[in-house]
């Protein structure tokens, strides 16, 4: 029954496990099942990154031996790492999942979006996301957001109601009591659901290790030509760069997060397998986003502002 992606999850009859990871897993499975029970058209946001790969893994566990009763949606900035897109398609094929892709490029081509002067496309994802939610009439959208990532995310609910413009209104959030989630919404509104809310970056890595979950290779150290911009190691790609004044160097690096290539920085790292990554994350003195995401450095409330506009 288990295939390669999920290899390592062996049959066990351990009675009362209740480690932190077991609790987090049970909580996430409970959330998936609540959504399946209460919503008509849920969708999982899936980019091929580690958090969304973890989401898919948990969804498979939640409904086994039945198939996952939701499709996947990828908002593709067009600035992706080849390894990640390859991995994304491999996961979809392996599990017989359905994938919808909303390409930012299509929105730019027909004039619904304009390229930013800085070339960054991460903020451009919001419009294709909201358009896809509307056209497919998705009423619940699973995201891999975690509350440990960022201060505004720390105030996010597990079930987060969005108005018909997709906006997050922090002062109008519903109280979330016990593990009773209220997913009721009016026509046109939808609910963002975050099953990994209570996980930390280290929990995610420890769980990936325990379950033997495969990830795109760029999460592990490799040689890459990179150049330094705003204190981050960026790589060459269709997003532009290096500029004439930027020097390309070959470094041993890995990625801690995987997003739009124009604003996702690599970290210098020798961590070539999961155990070494865990040791590195545990010892790190920088947050995952602070180390690798230029878009969060835009202002003190950058994430809050993007969330209010409908971003994850």
């Amino acid at each position, binding site marked *: 029954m288990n295939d390669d992606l999920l290899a390592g999850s062996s049959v066990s009859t351990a009675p009362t496990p209740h480690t*932190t990871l077991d609790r987090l897993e049970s909580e996430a499975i*409970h959330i998936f099942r609540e959504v399946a029970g209460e919503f008509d058209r849920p969708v999982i946001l899936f980019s091929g990154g580690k958090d969304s790969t973890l989401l898919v893994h948990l969804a498979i566990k939640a*409904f086994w*031996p039945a198939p996952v009763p939701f499709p996947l949606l990828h908002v593709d900035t067009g600035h992706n790492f080849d390894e990640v897109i390859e991995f994304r398609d491999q996961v979809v094929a392996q599990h017989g999942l359905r994938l919808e892709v909303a390409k930012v490029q299509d929105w730019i081509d027909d004039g619904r979006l304009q390229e930013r002067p800085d070339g960054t496309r991460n903020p451009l994802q919001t419009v294709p996301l909201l358009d896809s939610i509307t056209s497919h009439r998705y009423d619940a959208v699973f995201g891999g957001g975690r509350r*440990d990532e*960022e201060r*505004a995310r720390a105030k996010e609910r597990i079930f987060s109601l969005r108005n018909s413009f997709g906006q997050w209104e922090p002062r109008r959030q519903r109280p979330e009591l016990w593990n009773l989630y209220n997913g009721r919404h009016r026509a046109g509104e939808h609910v963002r659901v975050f099953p990994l809310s209570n996980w930390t970056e280290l929990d995610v890595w420890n769980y990936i290790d325990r379950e033997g979950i495969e990830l795109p290779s760029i999460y592990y150290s490799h040689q890459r030509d990179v150049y330094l911009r705003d204190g981050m190691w960026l790589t060459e790609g269709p997003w532009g760069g290096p500029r004439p004044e930027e020097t390309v160097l070959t470094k041993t690096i890995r990625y801690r997060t995987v997003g739009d290539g124009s604003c996702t920085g690599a970290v210098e790292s020798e961590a070539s397998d999961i155990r070494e990554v865990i040791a590195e994350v545990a010892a790190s003195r920088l947050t995952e986003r*602070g180390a690798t995401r230029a878009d969060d450095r835009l202002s003190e409330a950058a994430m809050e502002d993007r969330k209010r506009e409908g971003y994850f």
Partner: protein
Amino acid sequence: MSDLLRLATAGSVDDGKSTLVGRLLYDTKSVLADTLDAVHRASADRGLSTPDLSLLVDGLRSEREQGITIDVAYRYFATDKRSFVLADTPGHVQYTRNTVTGASTAQLAILLVDARKGVIEQTRRHAAVLALLGVPRLVLAVNKIDLVDFDETTFARISKEFTAHATALGYSPDAVVHIPVSALAGDNVVEHSTNTPWYSGPTLLEHLESVPVEADPHDGEFRFPVQYVIRPRTPEHLDYRGYAGLVASGTVKVGDEVVVLPAGLRSTVEKIDTFDGPLAEAAAGQSVTLLLADDLDVSRGDLIAAAGTPPQVTDEFDATLCWLSEKPLTPGARVLVKHGARTVQAIVTELRARFDEQRLASVDSPTSLGLNEIGRVAIRTAEPLPVDGYYSSRRTGAFLVIDAADGGTLAAGLVGAGLPVLDGVDSCTEGGNTAPVADDHALVSPGP
């Protein structure tokens, strides 16, 4: 692997909650360098000479502008001994609903008081809410102890006064620990303070690392709300029909006799299934799939319970509501009740009493229940529900009251729970009266 403690903070505005939480994160090295740099920069921008640790937790723009916490913030930190999920709840009076939110999942709450002010009305009110929601353990953090010159007598006076109050609410002495701290300077938060030689107890973090955790209620009766029916209909699993859910309380073993409620059908557990293979036994807090020996009609919203000790199935019961909406509740209101995985229509037939926060007493037959008010009500539901008393099962004794019109959450509901009336010791809200009160003509099915 370390275990997990879920905790909440409570206290009034300016008691220094965000600073205390910031201090815990900072001193456990849970704050990473870039976050800290941002706090240093923001503090300097505000003209402060030392970093304002509350900026670590006040995440929203308006919070930082006003210097107050508006919404529950969840924080994560870990030591070698334990992982912690902390709900930092605002103390501003109109945001008391967030204290209810934080307390609903907490195994322990830290209640802050300002050493200069001692136990104030809001402290008493917060403690009552924590007791009402069944938070098993409290820590009284007597903060700003540096501002009373680390005075032992002041600490002892506040401790004594709070002990009397907590005892009246039903807390036993060993469930409440008092610690003198300075969140700003760090005294007794993580490191023992040399300024309080008269205090020999644990630091706050030492206590959090070592306090016994009443995790999920393993010793309770078996309760399993069915969330979803798994029917693969694949050639491999043609006749598979599994009931997916999270064990709400107790344990279940293969071969156990169970009853499916509200219908009252009996069967035995044939298999406890998971993706990782079948289990011989499952306990509270575990997500599993149950397969029953008999072919019954079970669907989302049903409750599978121990056959020998089922909950009461009734369409009329008394409950305590923490009203969380600006729309007031009046008798006869039509609402939705979400209990376990079932949502039913309901009418609040009677407002029996309201907890008067000003006088810390109860008022009989109020005409309405407003935002942040707590009241005892009678509820009638369109379909019978299998309910437990809140204090015998925090999961199956809890429900949401939902606005049928806009879907908003109106109230936190506790089946049968008592009002936190503070002028009598018999009003204790822990382990007290647990049975849901049903009217004579209420539907009751089935007997054991």
